[in-house]
């Protein structure tokens, strides 16, 4: 090999190496920027520089209109509730600018998102694990099963807005559930169902076949084998997959904007007349709230507070749920190893 060629090879090697390295670190840079930006700006909303340091109204109140006005040379930014109290104390006419949704907090949105996540995950895990068990343990590799697998793969690629429209058509209109938790649960659940099935099947497949055979050879039925000797060992993997599912469910806007989410609702979900109404009520939800406050209202200097606050809370919420799943998974996994 000539010297020139060797040099050329070396340069090509160095360039590609740096290209790969750059690509990898670009991800880190992007992630850092996003988290820092939302974290810093959001923490200005979440925390206050005096005791108790946490912005309690932000966590306990619903969104309110913000009123901004000057009075006797002082600038006031008051929420709806505070403004009314202030007017009673000061019976004068003031020229106030109102900014929608930019005061108060996101408590109903947190509750709504929590309810949506819990309900849809229960639905998706129940259906997903059952179908994964059927596909991996019972079904044989027939034509119809192959068709089902293709359908699952395709379903995973369907955009979330399509799920939203599907849920709107089926649950909201056809079944007359209206905009409700129930419709949101099923829509979100169906959206992540393919991911849950695929991941659960993967976890089931990872359980060594020797355990199934060993159990069957002792005179256990197939169902006993699955319940006692396969499923328990697949749970950590299934939990891992559901972490991703939770992140998506908590963060998706499109599937719930027609099916479950209200832009504003004064009552909390438990303030229903009959308990049966519980599942038939729409809720506020964090991602939809972020969407509303960042694109549905006129933007100005006062709107940023709520936008970043809500985004930060959503991130923290997803992070907390994911952390809980990881802890749960590690605790399950500690008991198992093969």
């Amino acid at each position, binding site marked *: 090999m000539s010297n020139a060629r060797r040099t050329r090879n070396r340069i090509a090697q160095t360039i590609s190496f740096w290209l790969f390295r750059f690509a990898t670190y670009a991800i880190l840079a992007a992630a850092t920027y996003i988290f820092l930006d939302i974290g810093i700006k959001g923490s200005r909303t979440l925390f206050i520089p005096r005791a108790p340091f946490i912005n309690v109204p932000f966590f306990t109140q619903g969104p309110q209109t913000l009123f901004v006005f000057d009075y006797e040379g002082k600038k006031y930014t008051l929420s709806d509730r505070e403004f009314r109290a202030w007017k009673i104390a000061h019976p004068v006419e003031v020229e106030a600018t109102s900014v929608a949704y930019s005061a108060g907090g996101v408590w109903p949105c947190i509750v709504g998102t929590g309810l949506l996540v819990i309900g849809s995950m229960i639905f998706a895990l129940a259906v997903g694990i059952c179908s994964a068990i059927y596909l991996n343990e019972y079904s044989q*590799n027939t034509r119809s099963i192959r068709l089902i697998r293709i359908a699952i793969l395709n379903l995973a690629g369907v955009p979330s807005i399509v799920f939203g429209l599907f849920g709107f058509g089926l649950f909201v209109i056809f079944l007359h559930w209206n905009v409700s938790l129930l419709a949101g649960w099923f829509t979100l659940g169906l959206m992540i169902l393919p991911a849950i099935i695929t991941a659960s099947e993967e976890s089931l497949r990872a359980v060594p076949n020797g*355990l199934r055979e*060993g159990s069957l*050879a*002792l*005179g256990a039925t197939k169902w006993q084998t699955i319940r006692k000797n396969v499923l328990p060992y697949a749970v950590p993997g299934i939990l891992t997959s559901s972490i991703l599912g939770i992140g998506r469910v908590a963060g998706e806007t499109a599937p719930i904007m027609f099916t479950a989410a209200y832009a504003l609702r004064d009552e909390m979900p438990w303030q229903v007349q009959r308990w049966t109404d519980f599942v038939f009520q729409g809720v506020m939800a964090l991602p939809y709230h972020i969407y509303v406050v960042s694109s549905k209202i006129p933007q100005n200097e006062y709107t940023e507070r709520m936008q970043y606050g809500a985004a930060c809370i959503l991130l923290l919420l997803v992070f907390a749920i994911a952390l809980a799943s990881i802890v749960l998974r590690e605790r399950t996994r500690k008991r198992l190893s093969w």
Partner: protein
Amino acid sequence: MVVMDKEEITHPAPPLELQRPAQPEPRQPVMISVDDVDFCYGTNQVLFDVNLEIPPRAVTAFIGPSGCGKTTLLRCFNRMNDLIDGARISVGSIRMEGRDIYAPNIDVVDLRRRVGMVFQKSNPFPKSIYENVAYGLRVLGVNKKSQINEAVEKSLRASALWDEVKDRLDSSAYGLSGGQQQRLCIARALAVEPEVILMDEPCSALDPIATAKVEELIYQLRENFTIVIVTHNMQQAGRCSNYTAFFYLGRLIEFGATSKIFSNPSERQTEDYITGRFG
């Protein structure tokens, strides 16, 4: 794998020295009888017209080169092949104590309880030692603590493991050595009181000392159980079996008392295999 020409065999095989030459009675009752069995995986036939009568309370060894169908036949006895898509007995029947185990009215779950199995790769469950042995009883619906305790101890004693594990019954089975794990699997099979125990190369992953222990155990167990063992190790077949069946390319070439098979086989292929000329 080549069967040698006649000219090449110049010396008769030196007779193997057998540690425990078995002395079977001339006419035996039959535990499992295999009648004219052909077996297929899909379109691929792996057993051809196998006829075999496995006597009770004795160790029967299946020997033969890889791919000769001995494991397949073994897994027919507890219908483990049912788990494989497309695997089936195409011709013939297998009877256990006179009853066709492939008849539609046979409860496979009960059959597998009666015909225990020990696998090539030891497969203890990721549970405690105690729970491993208790598993079979629990799936049978035994819940009485005292009954389970008793069966666990009895099985562990029978598999010569009790003294080694009695102080750590609640620790994970994965903490045991390979040989202990395999004996635990035997104990687990014994706990449900089977009549037949199938062993699929139980020592292939074990070192010589662990192998010796398992063989010793097999030799003791034959007093109470019918044991069928598949092995690649001919010395092992010689050491611990009463009867030996030699398979080659899906056919049963010869079946008889181990002492006879190893010292005076009637088929040339058996002799060639046993003396290491092929396989």
